[in-house]
């Protein structure tokens, strides 16, 4: 496998890892922060746009069209559009990262709410719920599994994308990948890549737990 030794240079130098635990911890915090900010803002914007799309059905197509357009534009190109204006900054990275969460989140929020059985809604109205209360107390909770499924995909995708932001001076674990490349030091590239995968798994499991807690009635879904 990858661990093969060629030209007398091992691809993984374990001693480097133990010597750089501080560095790894600092990058972990950076990676989690970059991902967390993107998810929070991405979710807030998506929720707002989804509510708009649910209230005014005609806006759904244009909203998802724009979100789809943002999703199709390569991340580096999107960063390129922003760098001349916002520089090699956290803001540039976050605008890009947030843009990529929108399509997945909006689709899932709207699909989750649409998926609530009309009979349940009918029952809520029959019990005297106003449509506002029915929305927040009945439809939203029942939509949680689908919404969280969207958050799982969005978080895993974002964790991977964060590594790319190393090229614009951010990056979390991506900084290891980039530095390893520049120095031809595969250990660092591997550390960055493997830790990014692990963090993606952690986010995935975290949201899975959230789903179990908030929607215990739902079956475990394999996405």
């Amino acid at each position, binding site marked *: 496998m*990858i661990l*093969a030794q*060629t*030209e007398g240079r091992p*691809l993984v130098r374990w001693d480097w890892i133990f010597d750089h635990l501080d560095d790894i911890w600092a990058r972990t915090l950076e990676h989690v922060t970059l991902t967390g900010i993107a998810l929070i803002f991405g979710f807030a914007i998506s929720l707002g746009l989804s509510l708009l799309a649910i209230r005014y059905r005609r806006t759904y197509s244009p909203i*998802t069209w724009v979100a*789809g*357009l943002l*999703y*199709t*534009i*390569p*991340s*580096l*190109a*999107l*960063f*390129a*559009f922003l*760098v*001349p204006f916002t520089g*090699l900054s956290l803001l540039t990275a976050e605008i890009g990262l947030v843009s*990529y969460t929108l*399509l*997945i989140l909006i*689709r899932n929020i709207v699909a989750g709410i649409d998926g609530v059985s009309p009979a349940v809604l009918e029952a809520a109205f029959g019990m005297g719920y106003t449509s506002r209360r029915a929305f927040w107390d009945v439809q939203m909770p029942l939509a949680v599994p689908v919404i969280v499924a969207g958050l799982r*995909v969005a978080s*895993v*995708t*974002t*964790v*991977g*994308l*964060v*590594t*790319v932001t*190393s*090229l*614009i001076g951010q990056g979390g*674990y*991506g900084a290891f*990948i*980039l530095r*390893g*490349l520049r120095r*031809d030091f*595969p250990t660092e*590239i*591997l550390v*960055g*890549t493997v830790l*990014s*995968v692990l963090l*993606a*798994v952690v986010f*995935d499991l975290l949201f899975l737990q959230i789903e179990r807690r908030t929607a215990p009635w739902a079956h475990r879904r*394999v996405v």
Partner: protein
Amino acid sequence: MNLLSDVLDFFLTAQSWTGDDGLLIRTVDHLALSLFATMVAVALALPPAVWLGHRRRGAFLAVALVNVGRAVPSFGIVALALPISLRLGLGLGFWPTFVALVALAMPPVFTNTYSGIREVDPAIVEAAAGMGMTDVQVLRTTELPLATPVIWTAVRVSTVQVIATATLGAVIGWGGLGRYLIDGFAQGNDVWVLAGGIMVAALALLADAAFTVAERWVLPRGLSSRDRSEVETVAV
């Protein structure tokens, strides 16, 4: 805006387009490598996916592949391809970029093809078999045509992803349009950054549109393609 007029000037200057490091060659390189890598990925991933989908086996593999594909950062794969390629004596630039792109394009093609075949209504498959079709006939005349929309969408999405990821090839010594971005970031040249970004985005959007237009000739009549969000993709 000064920058925008500089970028416009850049596009309107003949020298920007010509030469070994001009826009024209880099665009052609970028597109050619992307299409080549996607074709190889499709050639490798499609047959096993079609067969396993037909046999209705390997669901675990399909789910695992797409999850792994999504979790593994494409930047990491591109970066890892370089030291491996160097140690194998394949050099930097083309080969590591190509191999990384093929590896990244395969999981979504596999999983979508698999689920496309698998999701064909069992009643239709049974009817086909009941009419006396052989196994291969059922696959060729019934399952494959009905799965074409999903497969076509998967190929489209993969192509767009590969075009996007090919940009990262510039980090490991390949040319392509990524050069404008990487060199522009490194040297603080906003004109290159913006011009490169425009070219890459245009290429991705045009490829997406081209596949959508071509649908009309590729898909069997009466079937339409799926939405991109329903297709499993890898992050770029």
